[in-house]
């Protein structure tokens, strides 16, 4: 047995014993790369995810709704930061991470490339998109990489309010006028399928999944998580009194789960590949914010240096 094999064996046996891996521990190169890809993609999704909602902050229907939406978007900025910091423990710099996002080298969740057309979309995002994200994130609280797991625990604690505020928006509208309820139905019709796509390709088409599960980077497969989400969401839709846009959504007694229709994977591939309704707009907004904020980053450094020099001078 050569040295590399034994290190990898030892690593895998630590994983098998549910030990957490920490930043300075030895890890296979593939594990490091997988984590950098997954955690940064997760962080980028939080950051880009602020954009579709930001669209409605100034047009929220009441001060209460506006405050809640602001708090939610602020959380998402925080979640992006937790995840970027966790990624940086793996030896990649913040600048490289942002560069990968802005050049399109790194991906973010395809869901944020859909437009938010009405106020009901903000409710649907909270209910469905955050609901799907939470399903994924709760499982990731047990991921094998310590800094990622800790970020997930923090995020999950904060995230549950996001889903409730979304559901609350929809419930209020469903109890409102006919037009308001129609807005909810329209939003749910548009967000349902993209939400199911958030869990990624079917297990049979997900080449990295097996290795990620073996390393316990992922704890549940894409299809398992998607099924849990479907099962959880249907009773909630009944409370809202709206239809989910899938005629094949039927409870299967034998499986003990809801069956559902085939996802349009061609649409998924198109949106991931950059051809969704808002890909260009999102990236343009992200890059503009970064570039137009550069003066403030430079000013902060200049101020910190000036203050340091001043302190030195006053000591001397």
């Amino acid at each position, binding site marked *: 047995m050569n040295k590399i094999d034994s290190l990898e064996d030892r690593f895998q046996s630590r994983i098998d014993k549910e030990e957490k891996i*920490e930043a*300075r*521990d*030895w890890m296979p190169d593939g594990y490091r790369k997988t984590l950098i890809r997954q955690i940064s993609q997760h962080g980028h999704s939080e950051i880009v995810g602020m954009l579709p909602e930001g669209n409605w902050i100034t047009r929220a229907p009441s001060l209460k709704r506006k405050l809640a939406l602001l*708090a939610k978007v*602020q*959380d998402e900025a*925080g979640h992006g*930061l*937790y995840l970027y*910091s966790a990624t*940086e423990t793996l030896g990649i*710099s*913040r*600048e490289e991470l942002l560069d990968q996002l802005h050049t399109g080298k790194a991906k973010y969740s395809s869901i944020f490339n859909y437009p938010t057309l009405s106020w009901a979309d903000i409710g649907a995002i909270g209910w469905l998109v955050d609901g799907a994200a939470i399903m994924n994130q709760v499982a990731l609280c047990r991921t094998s990489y310590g800094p990622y797991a*800790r*970020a997930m625990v*923090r995020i999950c604690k*904060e995230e549950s309010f996001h889903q409730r505020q979304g559901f609350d928006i929809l419930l209020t509208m469903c109890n409102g006028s006919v037009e308001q309820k129609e807005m909810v139905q329209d939003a749910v019709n548009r967000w349902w399928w993209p939400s199911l796509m958030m869990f990624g390709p079917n297990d049979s088409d997900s080449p990295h999944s097996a290795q990620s599960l073996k390393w316990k980077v992922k704890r549940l497969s894409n299809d398992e998580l998607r099924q849990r989400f479907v099962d959880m969401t249907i009773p909630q839709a009944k409370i809202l009194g709206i239809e989910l846009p899938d005629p094949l959504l039927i409870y299967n007694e034998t499986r003990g789960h809801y069956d559902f229709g085939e996802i349009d994977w061609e649409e998924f591939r198109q949106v991931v590949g950059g051809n969704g309704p808002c890909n260009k707009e999102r990236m343009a907004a992200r890059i503009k914010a970064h570039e137009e904020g*550069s003066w403030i*980053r*430079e000013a*902060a*450094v200049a*101020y*910190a240096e000036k*203050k*340091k020099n001043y302190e030195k001078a006053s000591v001397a």
Partner: protein
Amino acid sequence: MKDWPLYEIFIRSRNGLNHKHVGSLHAADAQMAIQNARDVYTRRNEGVSIWVVESNQITASNPDDSESLFDPASDKVYRHPTFYHLPDELKHM
């Protein structure tokens, strides 16, 4: 542009408890690190006090030295009260 240094953030959740490491963030200086830590880590009353330390000021033990550092403690059972057998009639010690 010069990168903002990385700071490690420690939060005391309430008086009587020790500061605990919660994560890290970038800031131009220590004062800004405290302000950012306030916004990033204490949005829901998680803290009453914040410490920030520039990450490169921390010296950490090497995971490869774990055996020599920590294993010697594992065979010293006599450091624990359960090592000592007391007569049954003795109720409290």
